[in-house]
Each structure stands twice: as C-alpha cells, then as structure tokens.
C-alpha cells in the first residue's frame, strides 16, 4: 500500500469532521440520499457509526420514505407495562447450521447478521480489511465477493466467507479451504439475470492480478453458472465444494424470482445450510440502470413466501434463511426476521457507516469521493482499516442495542422467537405526496 501523503491526511481529517458534523447541523446537506436511503438515514447511520447508539437528536433512524417495502411496515409493540425489564437477558444469537446431518460445525453468531459479499474491485482492499476486522470483533462474518481473496484477510479467515460466483474469479482450492463458510452466488438481487459486472475502469493492475485477468478490460461473470442448469446440477455443484472442504458450511445466494420457494427447497436437498435471499433494493451503484430495482420480487414478499413454503415442506428448521438487499437499519433487520428470515446480510449499510452518501458513482475506478468503491491506490487510502473497523463495529453495537429494545418491547427474550411473527407487524399505508411527506 502506498504511503499516505500529507494532503491525503488533511483530506481524511476534513472528511471525518464532516461525518461528525453534518448530522448535528440544523439543516441537512442538499442532494443527499434518496427516498429509500433518506438523508436522515444516512446521517443517523453516521451517528451510529460514531457513537454506537441511535441518534438522540430526533434524526430518523428507523425508516425511509420509499412508500414501499420495509417503510410500510411497523411493529405492534406491547403496551409499556408488558415490556421485558431493561436488565432482562435477551438472546440475539442465531445458528448458521441447523441441519441434523453432516459433519459441519455448529457455527453460531452472536448477532443475527453478517457482511455481504463485496469483491476486491468493487471495493478497496482497505474497506475489505475494515469489514473483516469488524467481523472478527463481533464474531460474525464478512464475505470476499467474487474478486479473489486478498492475503491481507488471512488473519481474519475464521470470519471470512469465500464466495464462489459464476466467473469463479480468484476461486482456488486454497481459498475454499480457508473458509468456514462457502457462499455460492447464483444471482444477485440488484441485477437478477445478470452476472457480476466490473467495468474496465476499475480493473487496475492489482485487481487484474487478483483475478488473473487483464488490466483495464471489463469483467463480466456469466449468468448463470454454465455448469449448473438444473437442481441436480446444483446438488453436484455443492457436492463438489464439499468434496474439497467437507467442514465448510454452504450458503446459496439467490435473487427472488417467482419460484424462489422451489429454489429454496432445491437448495435444501442439495445440502445447503444457508439460503440467502437477495432482494432488489440492495447493491452498490455499479449495476446497469435497467436491472437496478426493476426485476424480481420485493424481498418483503419473498421472505414470507419462502419461510412458509419451507414450513409446509417440513424443513424450515433444517435451513437458515438469510435476507439481504436493502437492509438499512435495525428496524429493517428486525422486520425481515419477523417476516420469516433467521437473520440478514448487510452490505450498503456498512459502506454508509464508512461515509457512503449513495451518490452512485460506484462503477468508476476514481468515482467514489470517499475512497470506498474505488480501486485507485491513492483514493483508497482515504479509509484506514482500523478506523473503518471501529465505525462498522459501532454501527453493529447500535443495531444490537436497537434490536434488544425491539425484542424487549415485543416481550421476546430471543431473536429466534421473532422469526416468522408477521402478527407482530402492521402494514402502514403510505401517506401524503409522492415523496411520502405529508
């Protein structure tokens, strides 16, 4: 990694001051965020990443103004006299292996989330390191994405998921053997029907070296896996990774097509431990416009559909269901679980904690003003991994705090008891004008 120059240091200082200051100003910065990731949500995420607690200033930190999805759901909390006591023990852990067969270890994570796959190339090595450090401290996981496994992550390998995606960039037996969990990315909610997609501008010499491809040439992972055109191929595919690394848990990441329930059952019979449903609200800005948010089923419909189908098939308690794709807040997280997921996978929220403003310039190599989704060796110095790990860790702390509060107000002593409790959710009709304001 190149040396930080003095000018970079000054720039960093200015950015950090901005992250602290902006949430406290009486006016909000112009042109920040969108209806889903509102300016208040971005600013309140910064507050959480700074303090480890939700903002007390009245900044909205629970919902956005999208007039859809999680923004239209709210919890029916108990009357205050029936809340659990503040000191009551509340279990926020979830298991990641619920299968009764197989020699794989029974991994548990103390909080019901882990980090999503973001590749070296889509984000910088510094950001990957920050995420891995945070995952280690919180005894949860982060994921390599499909861009190879930088060796700087090796000290954290017990907390790093190796992703096997359709281009299989950087996937070797070695990187599979390093991982306690191997994630098969069949599809991605941000762009279902498309493979991974890294424009030439971001394929620097270092990125190309990691992927063993050519510098400055755009990289398109195929869609789908050309070796998997059926459920039985799917099983063979999982069997393959199991033949290489029998101890690894297997996660299958899919988007949310209409028959996602069938896909879930097929994955269970193929031997998956985790089914990871990726809805369309997520992803960085680096996907074609046409694909972003326009294809597949909304995640809040897909979760209960899969949850109920698995229950009906009698295998719900053998499979861990993780949801992702636009989980912004602790409330989103709890709602996803109440809809039927065991836990969630966080991607963009972690980037926002590091300063992302959702400006959407992610596809350019030097487009990210905060040095997050960049592959530029100089620009990526804007994120110090240690600073980043602190920020992500604080966001996790705030989420955990809020999750406990939510459970307490619902009278539940375990997050596992929240799963599938759609009865605790209320549909809140969107009110007002097109932007959701009154």
């Amino acid at each position, binding site marked *: 990694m190149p040396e930080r120059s003095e000018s970079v240091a000054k720039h960093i200082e200015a950015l950090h001051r901005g992250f602290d200051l902006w949430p406290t100003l009486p006016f909000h910065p112009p042109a920040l965020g969108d209806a889903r990731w509102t300016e208040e949500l971005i600013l309140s995420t910064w507050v959480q990443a700074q303090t480890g607690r939700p903002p007390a200033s009245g900044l909205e930190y629970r919902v956005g103004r999208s007039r859809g999805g999680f923004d239209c759901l709210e919890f029916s909390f108990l009357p205050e006299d029936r809340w659990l006591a503040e000191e009551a023990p509340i279990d926020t852990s979830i298991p990641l292996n619920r299968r009764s067969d197989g020699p794989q270890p029974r991994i548990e994570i103390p909080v019901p989330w882990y980090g999503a796959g973001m590749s070296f190339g889509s984000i910088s090595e510094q950001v990957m390191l920050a995420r891995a450090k945070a995952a280690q401290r919180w005894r949860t996981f982060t994921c390599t994405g499909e861009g190879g496994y930088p060796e700087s992550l090796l000290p954290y390998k017990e907390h790093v998921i190796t992703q096997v995606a359709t281009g299989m960039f950087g996937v070797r037996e070695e990187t599979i053997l390093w991982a306690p969990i191997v994630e098969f990315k069949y599809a991605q909610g941000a762009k279902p029907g498309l493979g991974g997609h890294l424009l030439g501008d971001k394929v620097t010499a270092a990125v190309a070296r990691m992927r*063993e491809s*050519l510098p400055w040439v755009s990289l398109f992972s195929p869609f789908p896996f*050309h070796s998997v055109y059926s459920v039985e191929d799917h099983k063979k595919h999982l069997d*393959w990774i199991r033949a290489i690394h*029998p101890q690894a848990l297997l996660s299958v990441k899919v988007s949310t097509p209409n028959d996602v329930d069938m896909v879930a059952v097929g994955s269970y019979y193929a031997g998956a431990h985790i089914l990871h449903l990726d809805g369309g609200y997520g992803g960085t800005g680096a996907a074609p416009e046409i694909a972003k948010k326009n294809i597949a089923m909304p995640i809040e419909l897909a979760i209960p559909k899969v949850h109920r189908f698995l229950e009906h098939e009698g295998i719900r308690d053998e499979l861990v269901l993780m949801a992702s794709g636009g989980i912004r807040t602790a409330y989103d997280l709890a709602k996803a679980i109440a809809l039927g997921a065991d836990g969630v996978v966080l991607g963009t929220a972690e980037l926002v904690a590091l300063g992302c403003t959702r400006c959407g310039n992610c596809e350019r190599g030097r487009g990210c003003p905060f040095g997050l989704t960049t592959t530029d060796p100089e620009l990526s110095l804007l994120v110090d991994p240690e600073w980043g790990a602190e920020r992500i860790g604080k966001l996790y702390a705030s989420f955990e705090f809020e999750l406990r509060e939510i459970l307490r107000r619902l009278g539940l002593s375990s997050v596992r008891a929240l799963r599938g409790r759609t009865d605790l959710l209320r549909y809140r009709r969107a009110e007002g004008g097109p932007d959701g304001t009154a």
Partner: protein
Amino acid sequence: MGLPESLIASRPLLREALPTRKGEAEGGCGVIGLAASVPVAGRHLLQALVQMKNRGNGKGGGIAAAGLDPTFFGVSQELLEQDYLLAIAYLDGTAQAEVEGSLETTFLLEHALSLPTLPDPRVLGLEAPPPAVRCYFARVRPEVRARFMQAHGITEEAAAEDEVVYQHSYRLNRAFYASEGEKRAFVFSHGKNLLILKLVGYGDDVVRYYRLEDLRAQVWIGHHRYPTKGKVWHPGGAHPFLGMHEALVHNGDFANYASMVSYLAQRRIYPLFLTDTEVAVLLFDLYHRVYGYPLEYVIEALAPTTERDFTLLPPQKRRIYRMLQAVHLHGSPDGPWFFLIAQSLPRERTFRLIGITDTSMLRPQVFALQQGVAGIGLAASEKQAIDAALESLAQEDRRFWPHADRYWNARGGSHTDGGAFIFTVERGSFLCTDKFGRPIQADPLKQPPLPWPPVVRRARPPELPPAELYAWFVRKLPEWGYGDLEALLDELVRGATCDQERQWALQTLTLLLDRRYPTGGLKPSAVRWLLEQTLSRFLEHIRQAPSPGYRWLGQGAPVPEPEPEATLVLDARGYPSEGADSLARTLVELYRRGFRRFLLAHTRGQRFVGCGLGAASHGVHIDVYGSVGDYLGSGLDGAEITVHASGQDQLAQILKDGRLVVHGDVGQTFMYAAKGGEAYILGNAAGRPLINAVGSPRVVINGTALDYLAESFMAGDPLQGGGFVILNGVYFDEDGSLRDLDTPYPGGNLFSLASGGALYVRDPHRRLSEEQLNGGEFAPLGRADWELIRPYLEHNERLFGIPLSRLLDGREPGEVYRKVQPAGHQALLPEEAWVRKEA
C-alpha cells in the same frame, strides 16, 4: 378439412383458465435409453439406473418399454401387436369398477391382468405406496369408431382409433385424476406394444417393484426425477410421459412453459399434470401423429436450427425449416433439455429410441452404438450409465461386450447431425441414423468378439522395453484373432510378480489402452475390452501379492503402510460417488497419509476425483482407469492426473496448476474458469470448454469442441506467460489412422467475448471463417507463437502418438496453424505496456 384439422376439431374446446406455472420446479434428472436388435431384459436397464441414482432424489422414477414380450402378459404376439395396451394406475383401488365401466363403453377388453409386484414396497424404502397397475388389452369398439369417423368426417380408420383412445385417456384422467383434486387413477400408457410404469422412488425401484427384471423389450427408457418438493405421494409428475404410441423422458427445464401451454391450447390440447415433460410429449404427438410430419421435421420443430448452422443447411432444407420455424417457434421448448423417446410404430412393427438435445446443448448427453451380430444403441446422461448397462448385458449374452464401438455427443440444432439420433429396430434389423436420416455405422466389417476356442500353443511376448513391445503388438495385431490376443496379453501379465516386471507389463498394457492403432479384423472396442480384462487380472495379482512398489487398497481392506514411491492401486468398486466415504475423500485421506502415486481402477461414475488435495500438490500422480465421473481434477493445484479413457462433464474446473491428460473425450464446461495448468485431450470437448478461463491455462485438444470454445477467455497474452488453447481438428478412424476433421471447429461461436489469451487452430484447408468469431480476429502465426506452442505439440506427440510431422504435413507452421486473438487487443496494447511498467 384435412386429417390434422379434423382431428383437432374433434377435440372438445376447453374454456378454463390455462396453467401458467408448473406444479413444481424440476431438476436435471438422470435419463437412460437403449434399443437393441434383440429383446433385452429389464435388469440391464436397472443396472444403468442404479449407477445414476445421484441424479434423482427418490421422488419420482419411471420406465417405458416398447416391443414387449407377450408371454409376460399372457397374451399372443398377435394380440400384443393389434390391441391397445392400456396400463391404468390406481392410486385408489375403489376406482377400478368405475374406470372399467368407462373403458367398457369405448373398448372391447380382450385381456386384463394386474401387474405382479413385490409383496411389500417398504423393502425398497419407498415413502409412498406405488399404484396398483392393471393392464388391459383393448380394441376400440367398431361402433364407437364408426360414430367418431362419421361425426368428424374422418376416413382413416387407424387415425380415428388412435384419436379415440387418446381422447378417452384424456377424459379418464380429467375425471379420475384432475377433477377437484381427487387423484384416484390415471392412465400410465395406452399405446400399442408400449408400457409405461412409474412410482414415487427411483427409476430402478420401478423395475424391482413391478418385477420387470426378466421382462424383455426392444426399446427401454428409464428416468430418475429430481423435483424440488418435499412431500410427493403419487407419481403423477414422474416421467415417462405419454404421447400416443410413445413415451418421453426428459432432463431439463423449460423457461417458456406458459407459452407452450397456450400454443397447445390453440390446438385444443390441455395439459393435466403440470410438468414441462408432459407438454413436450404433447408437442411431439401433435407434430408426429396429428400433423404427420416426418421425424426430421418433428425434431426441427422442437429444436430449431439457428444462427450459422442454419445458413450452412442446403437451400431446400432452409426453405422448409424456415416454414417450420415460422409456425412452431413459439411452441418450441426454450431452455436446457434432453429428450429420450421410446416409440412403437404398430403398423410398421417398428420400434425406435429417439434422443434429441436442445439447440444450446445445455444438458449432458452421450450416445453410444455397438454393432456385432446383434446391434444396440444407447443414450444417457452419463457415459458410465451406458457402460453399466452394456456390462450387465454382456454378462448374460455373448453377442454383446462391455464396450460400445462408438460414444459421441450430439451437437444440438446443428447442420452437422441435427442434435438428434434415432435407433430403429425393425424385425430384427437395427439402424442408427442422425436427424437427417444419415446412417451411423460402427465398424460394420469387423469381426465381433463371439466366443472363441482357447489358444493351445501359447507364445510369450518378446522381452522388449514397453514402447517397443507396444510397437510389436501393433505390428502383429492384424494377423491375430481374439484368442491369440487374449493368450498373449495373459502371458504379458501372468509372470509379472516383481516391481520391475509389473512396471513393464503395466506400461505396455497402458500404451495399448491409450493409443489408437489398426486392429486388423478385430473390433477396437472388443480389443479394449480384452485389455481391460487383462488389466483387471493384473491388478488382482497385485491384490493377492503386493510388492514393495505396488500396494493395493479396496473397500473395507486395511490401508497399507504409506510409501511415497510405491503405486497404490485403489480399487474404486464400492466407493460412493460423493460424501465423506467417497472415492475422492478417500484419495485425499491417503494423500495426507503420505501416498503420492495412485492407480484408480474400476471407477464407475465416481465424482470429484482429485478434488480436495489443496494447494501445491505437486508430485502427486493419479492414473485413472474405468468410467470416471464428473468434476475430475476440479481445483487441481499441482498434481498430475491421467485418465486412460474418456472423461465426463465439468473436468478441471478452476484448474490452477498441474497437468491433466485424457486419452479420450471430455464433456461439458471443461476447464470452466481455469487459472493455469496444462491439459491434453486426445479427442473432443463437448460444449463450453475453457469458458471464463483466466491466467495461463495451456491446453491441447486434438479433436474439436461442440461449441462456445473459450468464451470470455481472459488469459493474458500468451507470448507474455498467458494462456492458450491448441485445437488440432484431427481424429483417429476405425483403422487407427489419423485423419483431419471436415472442419476443425463446427460451431458458430468461437472465442466469443474473449479479452485475452489465444487459440491456435490447425486449419490447413482454411475452413474457419470470420463469422464464427465474435470479438476475436485471425492473426498470422508468428515465429514467437510457434516457438511457444511447439513444445506442447511435442509433448502431445509423446502422450498420444500424434506426430507433429503429420500435423504439419510438410508445410510451414504458419500455413497450417491459425492464431485467433482478441480483436480489442491492439487498442489495449499501450495501456498494457504502461501497466506492465507499473507492475
């Protein structure tokens, strides 16, 4: 009105909403079919199905047989041929009286029997009780037929009878299966001389449960299903599905089910079982029986010829195909599929096995043919299933032997073979043709290995080094009969008790197995069989008396002391294909204990061999004999694997380092996303080899590839350490002579979207054209290119005996080899130069 219109108009119009969605998603499944000039017993199909169990999940299995043995049913040959054979599945026994009442109104029932079954389905571990099956030999009542003909203006009696039967079954299924969710009974089959049976279980369970081991038939198909549904209590969704006189099994999945349903509805055909296999056979029946298309057009309507292949058809065909496509394209199944169809043609007393693959070749498929005094054709999802059927058959019937003469893949929707093959059995004669009706022959003039008298006067093979001894065998072979060869091979291995002699015998035998050479009047496939028998005996000697350099391990035997220099013979029989006790994991365990040289014998479809050795497994040598399974060497990072036969699908995925040698063909997606290493293939690759490969893989394919070779290839600059593929475009004919293929590459997609690496295609007659490239360009073969690839061609010569001098034929390398490189390459050169400085 013509007959097709009259038949369609005779069907009641349904005004209900059509299904737009399948009942459940369904996987690839496992399929096998065989057709033989002599009736073949069901137990041989069973062996093939047992081999492919990992392609199903026990939630649906089925078989169909055509050209049946009348004694099984207790009827005369005449009755069997003339009557419709209605096989009714009773899920609810109380439906029988009602069903039979319905039958009586349409049919004269001439014979009926309940199929015998095992006393208790639980011995097979079946979770749902299989249906009771009653077979009725029936004739359409003359008055029913006459009424039907009059009502609909149909004059052809046979066509009218078929339609009466077809509509009767539809009505019966609606009444007893589809109505209000009451699933009480449905028709398994109603064709002449055709029987379909299915249950909730595996395909082989059907053979066992309904006691079909000894039933003989001319054509068999079998299927394991893989539905993604937990609880299945009846086999309504299991394959085969029924047309009129044909049964269809299917491996794949259609993306346009709803559109196919609406296409069929416009012809008054309405599916009841909500699977895409059902609509596939309904389409087949429509084209074949109602429209009366010749089989070639039926296949074209199902799997249209497109793109470059279409333009290469003769003008006459193009004209007709264009019409077929205009009318039927929106009904043709879109997505990955492979159909096997067992068909009875009652009027011609002919039976057919038809295998059709989709235009994009997205499902695994292999065809095989053996022709001796009898003939047999087979098609399956995996080669090893074919081998299992042949081996089982050869044990019982010496007219067959365990190796097919030919194994090949169909090129879907192509102008070369049409992606379909048909095995036709007609009164003892046997014929294999492609879609266009061109016959496929397998060494018809060579002598089949019928039992021979033992050779009394036995000679010893001369004491020469293996390469010279091999040459001696090859020189002598044309003078020998099977007995002479057997005796000499026997002598070769009999006295081999010490390491040195064993090495000598093994090397000689292996050369004889690996190489292609003239076999005189003998069948090459039978020579191979003798060689494998000899190898088997040789390895048995090692088991009985291991020597310091040759240890032996088999299922359940104690593991010998590890010795890195010794060869461990690992008898694969009994090791599962996947899982903790699999052959692949056993190999990893033995590697960890310190073994470095392995000889895997008797493999039968075991997957993942050579996976899991981890990084830097240099110094490990694995020699594989038999029929090894999918994903061999996938992840290999240093070790060397030699396959002394053909490989299957998904070999050498993500290959990183090491070497793979295959003395035969390789299947689908060979070396997908490979990073490096070397591979040498004697024969062909199927679809999508080297797709998404990066880094520096270096590959020699001596035959060709079906299509999509090196799509999205990103393997740097070969002259700067990057990767490449050499495609030689040659094959060995049945006399062991090396010949040029008509074209080194028949497909329409070569090096598509590639950004790095290069292809070196041997194309002495300049058959490749620009239109096959999409993102690639031809470039002259430079001196540096030749210096780069020559050592690989020299090694190729050592491995396979394909002389470089023969490949060049006395011409300059630049006149014979053409380089294909990424077209965007030039534009990027300045950037790359800059990057290299930076790196």
